[in-house]
C-alpha cells in the first residue's frame, strides 16, 4: 500500500508527514511524533486514555487513522501547558486536588474535560460525572478526579 503525505496541525504546529495509510492516529502521535502523553489502554475506544482533541472536540485516537487528521488540528496533553512552570488551570487543579494516582488515564481525562468545561463553565457534580462517563480509571475511584474538575471550574481564570 502506498504511503500518503498529510498536513496536520499538532499542538499549534503544522507539518507534513508521509505515513502508511493504516497507521492509527494514536500510534502516529506516540511513535512518529514522540507525543507519548497520549496513552493507549484498550485499543478499542472503551477506556478513553488516548483521547485527544480533533478540531477542538474529544476523539479516541485509537479509533482513527492518522490520514483522517489530514488538514485538521490535533491537540494532545503536551499542548496544554505553556511550559512546565506554567500549567494550564485544569492541570494545576488535578495536581492540587490529587486528581490522579498512576496517571495513565489522566491525559485522556484532561482532554475530555477541556471542551466540556469550556461549554459548561459552572457544572454540577452530576454533570461532571456524566462528562467523565466515557473514561476509565482503575486507581482513584473517580471522586478526586471529579473534585479536581470542580476545582478547575471554580477558578475564574479558566477558559482564558
Amino acid at each position: 500500500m502506498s504511503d500518503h503525505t498529510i498536513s496536520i496541525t499538532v499542538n499549534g504546529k503544522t507539518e507534513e508527514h508521509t505515513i502508511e495509510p493504516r497507521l492509527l492516529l494514536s500510534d502516529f502521535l506516540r511513535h512518529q511524533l514522540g507525543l507519548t502523553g497520549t496513552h493507549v489502554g484498550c485499543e478499542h475506544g472503551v477506556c478513553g486514555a488516548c483521547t485527544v482533541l480533533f478540531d477542538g472536540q474529544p476523539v479516541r485516537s485509537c479509533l482513527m487513522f492518522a490520514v483522517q487528521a489530514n488538514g485538521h488540528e490535533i491537540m494532545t496533553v503536551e499542548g496544554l501547558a505553556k511550559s512546565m512552570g506554567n500549567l494550564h488551570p485544569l492541570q494545576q487543579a488535578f495536581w492540587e486536588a490529587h486528581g490522579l494516582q498512576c496517571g495513565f488515564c489522566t491525559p485522556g481525562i484532561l482532554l475530555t474535560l477541556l471542551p466540556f468545561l469550556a461549554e459548561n463553565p459552572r457544572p454540577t457534580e452530576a454533570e461532571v460525572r456524566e462528562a467523565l462517563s466515557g473514561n476509565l480509571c482503575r486507581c482513584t475511584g473517580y471522586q478526586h478526579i471529579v473534585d479536581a474538575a470542580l476545582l478547575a471550574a471554580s477558578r475564574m481564570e479558566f477558559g482564558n
Partner: protein
Amino acid sequence: MSIGISPYRVDASGKVTGAALFPGDLTRPQLLHAKVLFSNQPHARMVRMDTRAAEAVPGVIAIFTAADVPVNEYGLTMFDQPVLVGVNANGRSPVPSDVSRWEGDQVAIIVAETEAAAAAARERINIEWEQLPLLPDIDTAVRDEILLHPEHPAQSNRYHHYKIRKGDMAAGWAAADVIVEGEYHLPNQEHAYLQPEAALSYVDEQGRVTVEIAGQWTHEDQAQIAHALDLPPEQVRVIYPAIGGAFGGREDMSLQIVMALATWKLHQRGEMRPIRCIWSREESIIGHHKRHRARAKTRWGATKEGKITAVEAEVYMDAGAYNYTTNKVMGNFHLTVGGPYEIPNAHIDSYAVYTNSVPGGAFRGFGAPQGCFVAESQMNKLAEALGMNPVALRLKNCYRENSIGITQTPLPAGVSLPQVIEACAAKAGWQVAGGKWQVAGEESPNLAVSSPPISQSPISNLQSPFQSLPPNPATLRFGRGFACAYKNIGYSFGFPERCEATIELYGAGSVERVVLKHSAAEVGQGTHTALRQMAATAVGVPLEIVELVMSDTAVTGDSGSVSASRMTWMAGNAIQLAAAAAKQEWTDEDRPAIGHARFTPPATEPLNPETGHSTPNFAYGYVAECVDLAVDIETGHIHLLRVVCADDVGKAINPRLIEGQVEGGVVQALGYAVTEELVVRDGRVLNPRFSTYLIPGVRDIPDAVESVILEIPDPRGPWGVRGMAEMPFIPLAPAIAAALHDATGVWFNEIPLTPGKVAAKLRDA
C-alpha cells in the same frame, strides 16, 4: 514535621503534562520490536515447532524458544512454570517444558525491525500440539485422573493443604443454640490496571542486561531473571519508570524474563540494539494471573447471647495452571475465613488445586476478600438468626487487645478492631441506646433501616439533564449492610521480610540537601510522596530539600514488594534507621553523611501442618464498612448510595493519599462485588477486553464514600503507622450482600451481583 499533611504528589507534574514515561513510552535509537507468542492451549503437549517460515519474514532478527532458556523455570514461591513452553529444553529444570497448561503460557519471543514484522512472523510459527485431557475446574482436577504437575511432591492436583485444629468441636456444637450453614462461590477478578504490560530492554554501559518495566518489586524481578538466565544477580538490572497501576497484578513475571533473555542472547551474538515490547489489552488479560476463584462450605455455631462457639470450614481455591503466590494467598484465606473473631473451637481445611485455568495470584487483599465474604456473610446470617444487631454481634466476638487468634497465639499488640467497628457504626448513624446498637430513632434491634422516601434519596441527585432512564421508584428497594475485616501488614508465615533504605546528607555547616535512595515501586498509591515526607521528618529537614532516587537495582537497595499493605510500614522503619545512621555520620563530620539501613520486623512462622498453630504475622490492619444501597428489583441493578469506611491507619502520613486509597479500594471492590464478571470456560478467558469485562465507570460509583480515618498507633509502626491500602477493599462485598438482603430478604452467596443474576434470583425467591 512533614507527616500528617498532604503535600502534592511528587509525580503529579509529569502525569498532568504527559512528561511521565510509562514503559511503553520508552524508546532508544536503533530500537527493535518484540512480540510474544502465547500457546493458546489450555492443556496440550508440544510435539514439534517449526520457526523457519517465521524467520524468513523480512525484518525478523531472531526467535527465541524453550531451547534458548538456560534454566527454563520460574515462580515467585515455587519454580513450577516454564519460562517458555517448548521442545528441546536443556533439561536443567525438573518442570516438564513441553506441556502447555494454560492458554497464556508463553512459547516464543520474536524480535524484528518493526512491530508489524514481529507480528507477521508470530503468525508463521508452526506448532503441532497433542491435546491432553482438560482439567478446567476444581471438580475435574481433584479426581487426579491426570496430574498437571507430575514433578510436584504432592503427587496430586490438590497440591497444598492448610489446617486449623483448635479446641473441641463436639463441645462447640453442643454449646451452640443456633447454627448457620453456607456455601459461597467467589469469582476470578482481573486487575485491569490501565497500562498494559510493556518493557524496554538493553545491555547497559556496564554490561548488565537491563529491563525497564512496570513491576512491584525490582529485586525479585532481578532474581527471577537471574535464575532463568543463569546469571549472577548483579549482572541483571531492573528499573521501574512510571507504573500504570498494579494492585498485585504485576507481582509475577510478564515480560521480565523473556525480554532479558532476548536481549542477552542477541548481545552474545554481537547484536547490541535495544528491544521494546508492548502488550495489547487482550494480551494483558490473557497473559497474567487473576484474583483466585474459590468456594467455601462453612458452618458456624453461637449461643443465644451471640457468642460464637464453633466454626467449621472447607475451602477450595482454584490455583490455575501454576502456583504463582497461591500457597500464600490461601494462607490469608485460611486465616480470614473465620473472620476477626475469638473462636474457641475451629476446624478448617483449605486446599489449593491445580487446573488448566488462568493462574490465581496476588490481587489487593490477597485472599482476605474471599475469606471475609464467607465470614461476614456468616456473621450477618447469625445476626438475623439471633435477632441481634450486627454491630453488637461483632463487638461481642471481635478481636481485641490480647485476644488469642485462630492460630492459637496472641495477636500482635495494638488491636483496634472494636474502636474501628464503633467508629464506622457511629458515622453510619447507629447509636447505643439502652445498651444496644441501633439506628437512631428506630426501635427494631434488627439491621433494617426504613427505606428513605424517594424524593429524599440521594439517587435523585444523580439525575442530570443527560440521563435518559431515571429509576422507577415503584421497583426500588433500600437496604443497609455492615462488615468488618482484618488483614496482615507485611509478609506472613515465615517468608523473609526486610526493607532497605539509604539516606545521604549533603552540605557543609548545615544539611542543604537530602537524598533518599529506595526501591519502593510507585504504582500510583503515592509511595514516593509518602517516603519523601517520612525522610524529611526522620532527618528533621524541610520537605523541599529531600530528593528521591528510586527503583533501580543498580543504585537502590532491596525494599521488598509494594504489596501486603507493607511499604509505608516497612520503609518508614528503614528510613528512621537510615536517618539515624546518617545523622550520626553527620555528627562525625563525614560529608556527605551516608546512612544505610536494612530493617527486619519480628519473625513470623509457618502454620503448623496439623493444627495451624503459629505466629503468622507481625502486624494487622483493621477496617469496617457500612453500605446503603438501592436495588431495582425488576432489573436487578444495584446502586450504592453511601459507603462509610472506617480504617485504622495508625498515623496518616498523607491524609489525601489515604482518602485516595479508600475511594479507589471501595470502587475496585464494587467492581468485584457487582460489575466485573470474568468468563472463564474450558480454560479460556472469553471476555479479555474492556468492552466485555466491565470495570466500574464514574456513573457506577457510590454517591458518597465517607472515610473515617482512625489513628490508633501500631506500637511497632513508624510514627505509629499501620498499612492500609488493601483494607478498604476487603469488607465491601459482604456489606453489599448484607444490604441487598436487608432490601430484599434474599441472601446472595455468590458474586458478582450483576443485574441479570440478581433479577433472576429475586424472581425465583
